[in-house]
C-alpha cells in the first residue's frame, strides 16, 4: 500500500472548503511527472490548473469532471503496475473516512503576524530546510497572490510570503508610502525571522522591491526572481493604476482588474469582492494614492533598479507574461546578465495564470 500515491483536491488559501473538478488533463494509464498539469479545478474565487506534486503511473481517476469535492478529497490514485486493481479498490474505499475526519479537525496553515518598525505585518510561513524563499507581492496585492505558488515552492525549501505595509492585513498607517518603506520592511522581516540569507521572488512592484533589497544588501540575498517587475523600464499602464486606486465599487474595479489577466474570465465576483473589502479599510485609499504618486505618477515608473541590481552581482532571473497589459514584457531585456523567460498566453498575473511554469522556473533557479 505504501506504493500508492493519492491525488487530492488542493487547498488554495485559508477560505477554500471545496472545489469543482472542471477537467482532467491526464488519462488512466498515463505516466505523470512532477509539475505536470493534471487537472483544472475551479473554486468560487478562481480557476487554475493543478500540477502534480509527485510522479507516477495514473491508475485510477476517482474524481468525475463537473463534480464538486471537499478539500483533500481523493480524486485519483497513482501506483506502479505491481499494485493490483484490488489493492487500489481497497485504497479508494478506505480513503473516505480519513478525508471526512481531516476536514473537521485540521485547519491547515494559518497566517502569522510580526511586529516590525513599520507596524504589524501579516505573513504566511511554510517551514523547511535550506535557504528560505521570500515572496513579495505587487501594488494593491497581498500574499494570496501566491496562492498557487507557495505550497508548490515549499517542496523545495522553506517559503515565506508577506503582506507589504499598506497591503493585505498589514499595517495601513506606515508612512511615507514609498519604495524605502517596502525595502526596509523586507529587511526587518528577515531580521525578525533571523534569516541571514534568503532568495527573493517579487511580482510587479514587489519585483522592484526585491531587486532594490538585493542591490542594497547583496550579501544577504542568494538570488532574485523578478516576475513582471516594475523597475526595469519607464512605461506602466497608468489607466490600470488610476482605475485600481480610484475604484470604490464593483463596477469600477472589475474593468481595472481585467487588465491583469490574459484570460479575463479569471476575474471572478469573489476576487472583486475580496479586493473591495481591502480597499474599503480605513487608510488604504490614502496609502495607495500616496504610493502610486511616489512610484507611478503620470504613467511613468519613478524608480529603477536594473543597473543597481546588475552591479550587485546577485544572481537574477526575469519571468514575464508575454501578454502583460500593465508593464510591457519588452522590459525583460533591460536587466543585464539575467536569464529571461517569456511565458506565452499569460498576462501580468503570470504566477497565477501559468503557476506550474513559474513554480518550475523559480524552483530550478533557487536550487
Amino acid at each position, binding site marked *: 500500500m505504501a506504493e500508492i500515491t493519492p491525488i487530492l483536491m488542493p487547498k488554495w488559501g485559508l477560505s477554500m472548503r471545496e472545489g469543482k473538478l472542471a477537467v482532467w488533463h491526464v488519462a488512466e494509464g498515463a505516466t505523470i511527472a512532477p509539475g505536470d498539469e493534471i487537472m483544472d479545478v475551479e473554486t468560487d474565487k478562481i480557476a487554475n490548473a493543478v500540477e502534480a506534486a509527485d510522479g507516477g503511473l495514473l491508475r485510477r481517476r476517482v474524481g468525475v469532471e463537473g463534480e464538486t469535492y471537499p478539500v483533500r478529497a481523493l480524486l485519483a490514485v497513482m501506483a506502479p503496475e505491481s499494485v493490483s486493481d484490488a489493492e487500489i479498490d481497497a485504497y479508494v474505499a478506505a480513503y473516505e473516512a480519513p478525508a471526512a475526519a481531516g476536514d473537521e479537525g485540521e485547519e491547515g496553515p494559518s*497566517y502569522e*503576524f510580526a511586529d516590525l518598525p513599520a507596524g504589524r505585518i*501579516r505573513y504566511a510561513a511554510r517551514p523547511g530546510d535550506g535557504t528560505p524563499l521570500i515572496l513579495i507581492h505587487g501594488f494593491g496585492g497581498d500574499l494570496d497572490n501566491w496562492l498557487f505558488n507557495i505550497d508548490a515552492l515549499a517542496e523545495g525549501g522553506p517559503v515565506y510570503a508577506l503582506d507589504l505595509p499598506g497591503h493585505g*492585513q498589514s499595517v*495601513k498607517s506606515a508612512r511615507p508610502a514609498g519604495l524605502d518603506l517596502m525595502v526596509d520592511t523586507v529587511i526587518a522581516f528577515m531580521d525578525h525571522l533571523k534569516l541571514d540569507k534568503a532568495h527573493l521572488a517579487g511580482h510587479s512592484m514587489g519585483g522592484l522591491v526585491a531587486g532594490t533589497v538585493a542591490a542594497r544588501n547583496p550579501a544577504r540575498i542568494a538570488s532574485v526572481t523578478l516576475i513582471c517587475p516594475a523597475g526595469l523600464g519607464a512605461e506602466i499602464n497608468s489607466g490600470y493604476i488610476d482605475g485600481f486606486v480610484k475604484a*470604490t*465599487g*464593483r*463596477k469600477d474595479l472589475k474593468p481595472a482588474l481585467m487588465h491583469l489577466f490574459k484570460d479575463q474570465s479569471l476575474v471572478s*465576483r469573489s476576487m472583486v*469582492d475580496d479586493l473591495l*473589502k481591502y480597499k*474599503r*479599510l*480605513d*487608510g488604504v485609499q490614502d496609502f495607495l494614492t500616496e504610493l502610486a504618486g511616489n512610484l507611478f505618477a503620470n504613467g511613468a515608473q519613478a524608480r529603477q533598479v536594473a543597473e543597481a541590481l546588475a552591479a550587485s552581482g546577485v544572481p537574477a532571473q526575469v519571468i514575464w507574461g508575454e501578454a502583460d497589459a500593465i508593464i510591457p514584457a519588452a522590459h525583460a531585456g533591460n536587466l543585464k546578465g539575467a536569464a529571461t523567460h517569456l511565458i506565452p498566453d499569460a498576462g501580468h498575473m503570470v504566477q497565477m495564470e501559468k503557476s506550474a511554469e513559474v513554480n518550475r522556473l523559480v524552483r530550478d533557479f533557487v536550487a
Partner: protein
Amino acid sequence: MARVISMKDAVNEALDQEMTRDPTVIMLGEDIVGGTGAKGEDDAWGGVLGVSKGLYAKHPKQMIDTPLSESAYVGAAVGAATAGLRPVAELMFVDFVGVCLDQLLNQAAKFRYMFGGKAETPVVIRAMCGAGFQAAAQHSQMLTPLLAHIPGLKVVCPSNPYDCKGLLIQSIRDNDPVIFLEHKNLYASTGDVPEEPYAIPFGEANIVREGDDATIVTYGQMVGRSLEAADMLKKDGIEVEVIDLRTLSPIDMDTVLESVENTGRLVCVDEASPRCSIACDIAANVAQDAFGSLKSAIQMVTPPHAPVPFSAALEALYIPSAAQIAHAVRKTMED
C-alpha cells in the same frame, strides 16, 4: 484582521470605533447605557438587547440615556446634527417611529433642500426591525417602504455582520440623515468581519450568489431565506442570482436591471407589507426599464397585508419562507 463575530458585536464595534475616531459622534436613546443617574450599576442595560453594552465605560461623555420620549430625543439628535455633532439616536424598535415622525419627515429630511443646500444633518437613527422574535404587531414591523418613500432620508438594512459594520460606519460618516435598520433576528448571525474600521458606500447592491436562470432581489433577513431557496432550486438544476440591496435609499437599480437583462426572470422578496413595498418598487422599475428582457411575469413574495401576528405558529406562516421563494422562482420558469 478578519475574525468571526456576530452582527450584534459588529454594531457595537462600529459604534465604538467611530466614537473613538471622532469625539463629535454621540449616542442617545432609551437605556442605551442603562441606570445612569440612578443608584446601582452603570451600564446595566447597554440597549434593550445589550447591543451597546460596554461602550459607556470607554465613551462616558458621548452617551446619553434619555427619558422615554422619542419625540424629544430624536428631535434633539436632529438639532445637534445641524449644530455640528454626529448623533446616533437609538429608536429601539422602528415601530416607534410614529411618535417622532415629524422630526424626520418634515425636519431632518427637508433641511438640505429647504436651506439651499447649506444645512447638513448628519444624524443616524438606529432601530430594530422585522419579525420572527414573537414581539407582536407593535415591535415586529418592517417599515422600510414607509421610510424609503421620504426623499432626503437614506435607508439602510444590512443582512450580515460584514455589511452591518461597514454600512453603520458609512451611516455615521454620511452628511445626510440615515435610518439604520437592524433586524433583531440577525443579531446572533455570525460572519467574517475585519477588526479595522471600513465603510461600505451606499447605493451599491451586493450580488451574494450568481446564477443565470432567475434573479431574486431582496434585503435584510430575506437574503438568508433567498439563499436557502437558491440551494433548494440548485438541486433541480436551477441557478438563481441573489441580489442583496443593502440600502433601500439610495437604491442600486443598475445592478438589478443588469441581472434581469441576463436572467429574464425576477422575483422580489420583501419582509415588508405587500402594498407599496420595496418589492413593488423593484418590480415597477424593472417592468418599465427592462420589459423587453423579461421572459415571464415578475413575482413578488411578501407577507400578507396584515399586522405581524403574536402567535409563534402564525408568525412563522406570516414571514416569507424559503419554500415560498423557491415556489415563486419556479413560477417564473413555467411556460
